[in-house]
């Protein structure tokens, strides 16, 4: 049913003030149009004629946390299959329509969402809208393509986890940090679970999650609004909204009740690793901005606290980072550091904990706060230099933060964080009882008495959902 008048009722033009000023710098606002088709597909569009291109971003609200039981890594494997065939497209035709005309495409599977995107010459917009509608409505998959792409994903696993000396350390972080939530299974999965996946799993996953009411289509670039609306109606409006319920992960990660410590051993560890993780709130929480500001003050740049203390002055660490890894359902505030050659992980841990205590005991200085805010504004400007960066920011606001306007208001939240807010969240979340500690050590240091490393076993299989 394509009824333009009805469609227009649900569409809104956002006309915010053109710019908000930060210091002497004006942050250009993202002026987007927001409409929802009767089948539930949300369409956000931003006209930007700075280059003769268009970026299409399709967000599906399904991610690695939705991997089926005993299929860790499946949402990501599925993402690869979306570049294979559809009813009217041969395998790899997406590349013909993008790369072959000077565009590009890619996709990323996150914990909470899967995002497909392409940037193309502006005159190919209609072509690619057709192609995106194809893979939403009529994905097809054959066994040969499936197995070949699964082998590619297994090479991706080896390239990101097994080949780099620190791959297994970062792999261990989710596995060890989460107790109940499916975030505990790394998005890349395990070779065993990937091998167990079948074509039937692909079809079932597509039927369950790839539906217009679980998708957000974002178009940023050089286009005509009316023409875009017409094309979106033409290719997407007839895709039916299924009657099946849309399953959602509904697991609350329980509060931690005391420190846990994990020792991971790997065959190829040139520099020993230390991670501290603290259960933190969701990205939607009111504390999110203060936690993010804390991570910037702790570790962005060489004047940051962790670099100055651990790397520069004490020379205990080769690197030291803090991150506010806040996801849709819950988050993790993390510290990761690699000991300098010959330095002990115990000393690195003690130094990290001393920095945490400092953050809890006294407010950050006005100069540190101002610096962090300037760094965040500059980072956001950089992200939004490209149409892909703009569309990512808009998609994150709409799909993960639940309101596309957050693309423009997020910076205000960050700018309003006070030194007291940072001290408060440090006291609230970075506590002894909320701390897990992971050491990453060479295999040669494994005590003879200890059992096999069960990291891979812990990563695969089911998660209580």
């Amino acid at each position, binding site marked *: 049913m394509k009824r333009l008048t009805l469609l227009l009722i649900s569409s809104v033009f956002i006309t915010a003030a053109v710019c908000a000023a930060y210091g*002497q*710098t*004006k942050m250009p606002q993202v002026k987007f149009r927001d409409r929802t088709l009767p089948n539930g597909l949300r369409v956000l569009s931003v006209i930007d004629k*700075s*280059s*003769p*291109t268009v970026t299409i971003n399709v967000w599906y609200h399904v991610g690695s946390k939705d991997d089926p039981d005993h299929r860790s890594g499946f949402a990501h494997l599925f*993402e690869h299959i979306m570049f294979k065939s559809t009813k*009217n497209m041969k395998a*790899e035709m997406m590349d013909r*329509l993008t*790369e*072959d*005309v*000077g*565009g*590009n495409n*890619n*996709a*990323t599977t996150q914990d909470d969402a899967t995002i497909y995107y392409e*940037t*193309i*010459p*502006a*005159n*190919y*917009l*209609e*072509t690619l809208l*057709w*192609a995106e509608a194809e893979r939403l409505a009529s994905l097809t998959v054959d066994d040969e393509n499936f197995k*070949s792409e699964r*082998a590619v994903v*297994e*090479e*991706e696993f*080896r390239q990101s986890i*097994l080949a780099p000396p620190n*791959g297994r350390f970062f792999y261990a972080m989710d596995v060890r940090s989460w107790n109940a939530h499916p975030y505990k299974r790394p998005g890349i999965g395990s070779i065993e679970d990937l091998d167990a996946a079948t074509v039937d799993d692909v079809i079932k996953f597509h039927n369950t999650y790839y539906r217009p009411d679980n998708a957000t289509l974002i178009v940023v670039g050089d286009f005509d609004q009316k023409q875009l609306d017409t094309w979106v109606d033409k290719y997407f409006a007839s895709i039916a909204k299924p009657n099946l319920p849309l399953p959602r992960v509904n697991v609350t990660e329980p509060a931690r009740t005391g420190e846990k410590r994990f020792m991971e051993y790997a*065959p*190829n*560890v*040139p520099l020993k690793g230390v991670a501290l993780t603290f259960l933190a709130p969701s990205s939607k929480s009111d504390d999110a901005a203060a936690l993010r500001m804390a991570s910037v003050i702790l570790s962005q*740049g*060489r*004047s940051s606290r962790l670099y*100055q203390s651990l*790397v520069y002055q004490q*020379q205990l660490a080769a690197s030291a980072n803090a991150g506010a890894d806040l996801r849709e359902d819950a988050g993790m505030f993390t510290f990761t550091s*690699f000991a300098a*050659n010959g330095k002990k992980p115990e000393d690195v841990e003690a130094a990290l904990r001393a920095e945490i205590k400092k953050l809890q005991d006294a407010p950050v200085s006005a*100069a540190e706060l101002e*610096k962090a805010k*300037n*760094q965040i504004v*500059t980072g956001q*400007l*950089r992200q*939004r230099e490209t*149409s892909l960066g703009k569309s990512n920011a808009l998609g994150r606001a709409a799909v993960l933060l639940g309101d596309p306007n957050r693309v423009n208001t997020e910076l205000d939240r960050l700018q309003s964080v006070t030194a007291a807010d940072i001290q408060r969240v440090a006291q609230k979340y970075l506590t002894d009882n909320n701390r897990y500690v992971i050491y990453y050590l060479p295999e040669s240091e494994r005590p003879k008495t200890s059992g096999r490393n069960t990291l891979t076993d812990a990563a695969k299989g089911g998660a209580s959902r």
Partner: protein
Amino acid sequence: MRNKAANWILAILVLALCAMSSVAQTAQATPPPPTAPHLTVFPKPVEKNLPNGLRVIVIPRTEMPLVTAQLLIKSGGEVDPTDLSGAADMTASLLTRGTSTKSATQIAEAIEALGGTLNAGAGWDVSTITTGVMAPRIGSALEIMADVARNPNFKDEEIERLRRQTLGGLRSALATPGSIARFVAARVVYRDSPYGHLLGGTPESLPRIKREDIVKIHSMYYRPDNAILVIGGDITPANGFELAQKYFGDWQNPPNALPKLQITTPDSTASGRRILVIDQPAAGQTAVLAVRTAINRGNPDYFRGIVANAILSGYSGRLNWEIRVKRGLSYGAGSSLDTRRSAGSFMASAQTKNVSGAEVASLTLAEISKLATGELLDSELSTRKASLLGGFARSMETTGGVVGQFGSLAMYGVPLDEINSYIASVQAIKAADVKSFAASRLNADSTSVVIVGNAKDFLPDLQKRFSNVEVISVADLDLNSAGLKKTVSKN
């Protein structure tokens, strides 16, 4: 991520139209054809030389209130004295770690208080200092940049700190199959010439570098007549020139002449070809490289070369198509043409499970060989050109990208107007040009192979495919010379 080096488009559309227009008929079953192309305009640089010889290039772009500035010194790792690999990179890295008036920490605090970044390092043929800030703060950022370029104090304490950090980073790199393979490949291609050593130094060379070596590199090469300042973003040329004059105008050239460096690299030959295995038993995957000499940046065959490379590289390039898409043997395979001032090389690369190392090596060489001897249809040529041009255009979407592109042209003495003739130069390349380039410059029989991984999984297979396979244990690897093997004195 599904992978691949992303790249970007535009006026390529003319040929893209040809590729597409025959398809679309019925609305739903076939893709709708493109509409009329939109035109692209590349940013326009404005330049002038200061009286001291400093070349200043300003590229205005007003979309975002950001400015990126880069000071390029036209000398890099190739000036490292023999046995002091890493000296030029240490020199550049130390610039931001202390000047006559500011400590390392004060420099970091000053630039980061602006919300900005300041990075320095050496590449091949060039050393750079780069800063990126919000547009209204570019004056303050350039003041800091000028101070670190002109007045570094190279304190012993900072030299030791950087040396330890660099050695730590090297420990990680030397445990990573892909990094080891690239280090080895440089020695295989450039042998003992200045391009053959490790840019960042080796575990043996780094401890040998003294403060006086660093001071010497700085005084010999960091001078206005060997430098280019490129400023891009939300700034007018007048403002850019004024700031350049203010902070770099009184920078003096030393009385001595700039040293001239001649680097000669013998072309790869079939008789000199190496099939080299670095055995790393702990490797979780095998890195496979095929490598040989190619052309320098000033070579008239430059456009033939980059189009030939584009046939092989990219997501739908022949290497990734054969190795990843058709066979599932890798997450990604590709190639690059590295064109330096005095020489250049071609390198194809992929990572695969240990047992597939030999198969991927054969597939890689086969594709290189086919480029010279096999068929190249215009349809394939035109789509690969589109991909190449798209990547070129996308590289200029950001102020950092624009500064990088113009800086690279300027440092090699290529007219900046090449940006505007780039599309036409690529489009002019014919299939016969690609094949002749491949035959003369990318001969597979004189292309060496470097494989780093757990050798027991692929060595028997490799020995069936190639004669003269050399095997060096990673524990015996010596990156300080082209022999690559430690000469162990047994006692």
